């Protein structure tokens, strides 16, 4: 970490003497350590320090972007000139929102020194503890432990001055036996929050519960959908449905449904960086404060996130990294409101159904304004009979409208888990859901 004072002072030097009408300089630094393990041994163990400096130059109504990962003064000046040159060669763009004026943002403390200082040996020992729990159960352990320190600093000639640093720690554990597998995971800004034993034990238990799976016929089932499964679907759906670009071009499933009931009234979904338990970026990549945006309120479609359209606007605080600006803006901090039901008791309410731990390769199905998703179950799909787990089920492909399925919500758990989705954002704070109907279209191995 460079630190707020040093970093912003260094970036601000670039603001002086530029030929641009206005200039923005953003720094993104990521120190990442990842320890991957497979079949009870560490097989990949990596560390990298990756800084990037993004310079956006405004010349009239034209914006140029140049990026470098070199922090030398000469390279930074060259990058600045390149951004100005790129802006100059463009035709005027009356729709260009320009650079925003400064706004106050909330300070959030999510940097844990012990996490950042975790040595390769400490990380390896933590991984070893997962492996021991799994291997003692006679199973094979696979997964990854990732630790990051991320620093973001933004300055501009408009007066923006924003800085945030955070740590993240995430772990995945897959326990595999001869006929089944189970999954455990954890995500926090503190490594010590990841309860190694409990996460690995969860994977082991799920693997054992789903051993010797049977095939069930595709069709509509009552399901218990665990947080990782829900998070992956919401992550994909947020890119399709809650993104400014798809709302503008009419392809979002929300178009034509704003103000209407789209799910059960038990479902409330927001984008809220400041929700307790969420990993939080308090401002976006233009230094604008994150705002809480209601997406679906008690089943009613409210809208998506909005793109800033002028210098005077702050927008919703969702500007993506400059390289992705043409995709529009999308939610980064999805929060599904907790319910009142205890998770442990949810299965008891299912007479005949399935429990889905996790999904694989979730994607949209074709069709305009379509919220139909497809994907496959993995790492623990269980049959529920008369309120009890009755054994494992072979993986299934689901194909269903998520809004339709959420329309059949019976219960939402009180407990939530923070999950990093396969696509779509920094994290999803997701409960366990009990749905009356979820459609499976086929068996994975027919």
């Amino acid at each position: 970490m460079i630190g707020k004072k040093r970093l912003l002072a260094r970036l601000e030097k670039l603001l002086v003497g530029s030929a641009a009408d206005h200039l923005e300089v953003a720094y993104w630094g990521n120190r990442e350590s990842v320890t991957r393990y497979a079949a009870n041994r560490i097989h990949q163990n990596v560390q990298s320090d990756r800084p990037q400096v993004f310079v956006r130059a405004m010349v009239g109504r034209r914006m140029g972007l140049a990026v470098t990962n070199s922090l030398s003064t000469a390279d930074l000046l060259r990058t600045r000139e390149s951004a100005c040159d790129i802006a100059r060669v463009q035709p005027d763009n009356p729709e260009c929102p320009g650079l925003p004026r400064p706004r106050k943002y909330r300070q959030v403390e999510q940097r844990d020194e012990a996490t950042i200082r975790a040595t390769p040996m400490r990380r390896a020992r933590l991984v070893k503890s997962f492996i021991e729990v799994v291997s003692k159960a006679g199973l094979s352990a696979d997964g990854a432990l990732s630790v990051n320190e991320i620093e973001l600093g933004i300055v501009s000639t408009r007066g923006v001055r924003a800085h945030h640093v955070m740590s993240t720690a995430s772990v995945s554990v897959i326990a595999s036996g001869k006929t089944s597998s189970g999954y455990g995971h954890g995500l926090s800004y503190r490594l010590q929050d990841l309860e190694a034993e409990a996460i690995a034990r969860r994977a082991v238990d799920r693997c054992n519960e789903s051993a010797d799976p049977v095939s069930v016929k595709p069709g509509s089932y009552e399901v218990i959908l665990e947080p990782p499964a829900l998070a992956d679907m919401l992550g994909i759906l947020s890119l399709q449905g809650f993104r400014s670009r798809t709302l503008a071009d009419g392809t979002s499933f929300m178009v034509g449904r704003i103000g209407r009931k789209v799910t059960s009234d038990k479902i409330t979904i927001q984008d809220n960086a400041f929700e307790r338990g969420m990993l939080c970026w308090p401002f976006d990549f233009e230094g604008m404060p994150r705002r809480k945006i209601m997406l679906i309120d008690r089943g009613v479609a409210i809208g998506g996130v909005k793109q800033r359209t002028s210098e005077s606007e702050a927008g919703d605080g969702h500007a993506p990294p400059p390289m992705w600006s043409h995709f529009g803006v999308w939610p980064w901090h999805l929060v599904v409101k907790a319910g009142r039901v205890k998770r442990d008791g949810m299965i008891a309410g299912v007479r005949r159904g399935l429990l889905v731990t996790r999904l694989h390769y979730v994607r949209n199905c074709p069709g305009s304004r379509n919220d139909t998703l497809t994907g496959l179950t993995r790492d623990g799909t269980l049959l529920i009979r008369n309120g009890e787990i009755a054994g494992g089920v072979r993986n299934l492909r689901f194909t269903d409208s998520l809004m339709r399925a959420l329309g059949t919500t019976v219960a939402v758990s009180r407990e939530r888990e923070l999950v990093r989705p396969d696509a779509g954002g920094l994290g999803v704070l997701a409960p366990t859901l009990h749905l009356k109907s979820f459609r499976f279209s086929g068996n994975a191995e027919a």
Partner: protein
Amino acid sequence: MKHRLQECIQWLKSRGVAYGDCRYVSQEREHIHVTNRQTDNLARELDAGVGVRVLADGCWGFAATVDRSPSALIKTAAAALEIARASAITRGESVQLAEQEAYIDSYQSPCERDPFEVPLEDKQALLLGVTASLLQERRIKTAEASMSFFRTSKVFASTDGSLIDQQTIESGAGCHAVASDGRDSQTRSTGGTTRGEHATGGYEHVEALNLMARTEQIRDEAAALLKAKSCPAGKVTAILGGHVMAMQIHESCGHPSELDRVLGTEISLAGGSFLTIDQLGKRQYGSEQVNLTADATIPGGLGTFGYDDEGVPAQRVPLVERGIHVGYLTSRETARQLGQQSNGTMRADGWHNMPLIRMTNINLEPGEWELEDMVEDTSRGVFLDTISNVSIDDQRLNFQFSCECAREIKNGRLGQLYKNPLYTGITPRFWGACDAVCNRRHWKMFGVLSCGKGVPMQVMHLGHGAAPARFRDVEIGASR
């Protein structure tokens, strides 16, 4: 830089590592993106650094830095060594590498016209012309066009004595149009999920794409899809267009042929593979028409290079011969487990990542059919065009792919346009029903810029050579 890398290699040797390599990568990138009548992203990037990989105490360690000073490289090498030694606390069998000859060599990809020397104004003008042409149809609400260029310089040095430098230039462009009538929206594009057509080569590749000339078909088909019927469900004969074939190869042959995946080291993220090693040389992967090859030597492919990131020369190897699965994509570590030598597929996304087994150019070898004859020979079926989305299970067996559009085939002729087609299948059964592949005249190399694999996620450029092919009894329109 060569000298500094060699100093780093000497330092690793002095520490008694079993193996070590240092890789300097510098990549210059340029992206231009136009939406409707405005340029909404025009960017140049420079990304450079050094990655050091060490095999010590039977385990791998990897560290990377942007600081290319001699002292920083030694510090990074020391970090990689510390990481490898820490990994050893869970050690099972020691990692061992297949023998590999050392090379001192250079490689440069062909490039007739340096895309970074082409004036930005000219490139923008072309893209703005493309979107203006697409917008001539009033129902086109969003018209996008883009170009991307990559210039990559690599220097590789290893404790085995290799010292290799490589220069590669990649170029590409594409466009897509979203038509809307207020009730429905439909998309047509030049590249579907691959967001354009990219190749190893210079600006001559972009010129050869002739984007302007193709806009009329794109916009007309996008608009026509608004009134088209949905693709009817059923089990039919399907001819898959070249782009559809490319992604079919990617998902159902390329990924399951990665030997690291087969051996279980990608289970935590992407899953395993049904192509288990006990069935190598025996498994019926597809019909006799199906010949699939990994070819890192073919001109123009995004998976074409001189040497991989372990210093192994680029190769052409069979994966499926006359329907039988006969080979994998391998590394020095995994090839040794089969008693083989590496076939050179280890590549890393940038300087900051450790190399993994990645697809090179995974190609379906051309057959003998003319496309016109194939259609004429099909009494009833559909022609599927341009993949828009893919989903496949963690063993690469059960897939469901959707396309931008389809055309009815009736009595040997292409008929009406259908919207929202999707098709599903089980990989070996699907390839087993392939009864015809088009010839070299219809064969084309497709570039993929965004193949994801690994933790941390690495995004790789690779290619697929394919021609349209015919499959019997394909489940269309229904979800599996």
